[in-house]
């Protein structure tokens, strides 16, 4: 299979330039074209060794696609390619106002959950999504234009907070549903 080489990075795998701003339609088309070649369903009638190989390749293509599709994972991956660790587990030094707003968010989500207030949760979710998009636009500038990877790492850490918040909103919906 000429089109496939596990040693390539995720962008090269799909024939894309490494950048945060990404044409998602092109990514998706490339992903589907590649999966159409390597997916295990294509070799289900072949020898076990070929099936195993297909599973490994298909796994890598899925991993690469999921990484590039998600803005936070894409940013993390680009920083890694540029030798910058986002230190999401170790670096807890966040701007005080950001931490304050995060605490307020969480209280609001908890309150909405307790009152089983779906409308409030909907409002919180849409504001959270808007703020996430703003952070992503900033990331595009930091990475693609400024090449300020340390600055971008801080934004990724902030995005990680937003991601956790999204998870909490999701489980709050679940709790209300139960």
């Amino acid at each position: 299979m000429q089109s496939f080489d596990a040693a390539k990075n995720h962008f090269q795998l799909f024939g894309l330039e490494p950048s945060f701003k990404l044409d998602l339609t092109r990514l998706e088309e490339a992903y589907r074209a590649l999966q159409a070649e390597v997916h295990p369903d294509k070799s289900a009638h072949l020898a076990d060794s070929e099936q195993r190989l297909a599973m490994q390749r298909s796994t890598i293509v899925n991993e690469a696609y999921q990484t590039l599709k998600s803005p936070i994972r894409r940013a993390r991956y680009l920083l890694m390619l540029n030798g910058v660790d986002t230190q999401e587990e170790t670096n807890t030094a966040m701007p005080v106002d950001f931490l304050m707003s995060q605490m307020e968010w969480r209280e609001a989500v908890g309150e909405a959950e307790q009152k089983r207030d779906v409308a409030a949760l909907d409002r919180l979710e849409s504001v959270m999504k808007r703020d996430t998009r703003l952070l992503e636009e900033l990331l595009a500038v930091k990475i693609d234009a400024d090449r300020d990877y340390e600055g971008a790492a801080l934004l990724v850490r902030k995005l990680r907070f937003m991601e956790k918040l999204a998870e909490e909103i999701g489980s709050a919906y679940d709790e209300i549903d139960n």
Partner: protein
Amino acid sequence: MSTAPHQHRLAVGIDLGTTNSLVASVRNGISVVLNDEHGRSMLPSVVRYFADGSIVVGDAAQAQQSEDPANTIVSVKRFMGRGLSDVGDISQLPYLFAAEGAGMVQLRTSAGTKSPVEISAEILKVLRIRAEASLGGELVGAVITVPAYFDDAQRQATKDAAKLAGINVLRLLNEPTAAAIAYGLDNASEGVYAVYDLGGGTFDISILRLSRGVFEVLAANGDSALGGDDFDQRIYCWILERNQLSALAPKDTRLLLTQARAAKEQLTEHSEARITAVLSNGEVIDNVLTLTEFESMSKNLIQRTLQPLRRALRDARLGVEDVKGVVMVGGATRMPQVQRAVGEFFGQTPLTNLDPDKVVALGAAIQANLLAGNQSGGDWLLLDVIPLSLGLETVGGLVEKIIPRNSTIPTARAQEFTTYKDGQTAMSLHVVQGERELVADCRSLAKFELRGIPPMVAGAARIRVTFQVDADGLLNVMAREMSSGIEAAIEVKPSYGLSDAEIARMLQESTEHAKDDMLARALLEQKTEANQLLDAVEHALIQDGELLDASQRADIGARLNALKETLSSKDHLAIKRAIVLLNEATVNFAQLRMDKSVRQALAGKNISELEVK
């Protein structure tokens, strides 16, 4: 190795359902359900075991299910990959459960202890034989469908059952996805579709995007213990209440459940259903159930399906307005209140133009044909997901998610661990599946024991554990110590599944069993014949013993005792020989008795009577 051109490889799709199972195949380019010799397409998923080891599957077993409920297993799918504590109130079920072990439930039947895997294998065997007879050759393999919301233990159990039935599994395919294939390829559909699949015992909702030959599952959710059976149960409880019944005999329970199901089916087309039954104590049940009553008693069951629906949409990041069509799958979606609730939720009339009972098998057959390598051109691609997150137990009984739900499969995730003691050479991992934060609230899949880690100081070893989910949605775990490159050996202790050794044992038993079955049947036949003969001879000796002289009497007596002795053996040939010997000795006796009875008949009647006729 590749397929020779123009050689059609026989492959089938099997829908192993809670209530009914089907097998389908692509013939002359069209997917068709394969019927049995009586023209029936649906095989009731009912298996009856007899004390002599013989097994009856399907309609015959179903027809007689209230005769021997303890040995007639219905809805075995509910037990697949499940422990006793998952089954709920076992006093409501007519089966005898084997008590031992914390693993998958085991049923004690008159033919011995059976696991749900073995019972399911009996259903699959019948379908395999039906397919081979119908297609005229051996199968290269089958696509077996499973509920999308089945966890790893349930999927593995299904695959093991297929193996036990002598079937090469080309793929485990999610039922809603199979339905989407049948529907999508038929209608050349594009856009986002929801598949609402309410089967006999399981509920699935899948959100798919169909686009230029790609079936991409965006999210799957469901409840693997909710289905049409539960609606029957509601009616059953209503009958009990109505008639002030309690503590029924298993026979009566079965009978009323059958009547409950019939009433449910009646109510899909009528506004009321009459329920009549005569219980074993002679009590007569005669009730009328209205559709309105049925709808109100089953309302919260339908509500329970809407919650997974909301979750699936949220996971897919879509709203109801994004859904272009809703495909209804599973016999239980025939209920008008289900169609109404789903229609209201999505704001559109659900699609019911494909037979909800057959669409899964038809789709599975189409996929089987592709996987067997028969499809030339016009390919499609199926991108499915894992329905439930996979995680590891961490400190304090908490779960750390390794692979999140709705990840496209195949997928893998690696995690590094280290040793906490000097010279530590082993380590254990507990893998769980589910969305909850506590291990206790998730499903335990397996404990992995890593051995052969090279001894090092604490914290020096770096053990990389890779969790690989394959295209069947099944988890495999690999481990490697990174600094030495040593592959750690993994011993898997499945929580609910069967170990490889157990599977091997069952396989061996089932091949031996085919032989055993024949022997058991021959033995039973000879014993029956022997007992009939013994009864007849003993009766004759009492009546007409005086016709024999002493030596004849002694000879018959000796052969009679010899036959009695062989009955305790399991040698059907020895019994047969003793039967022949006794028969020989009684030829003369029979002649004497016949003469006597003729004489008596003549003696008891007037000459005139004889002449008149």
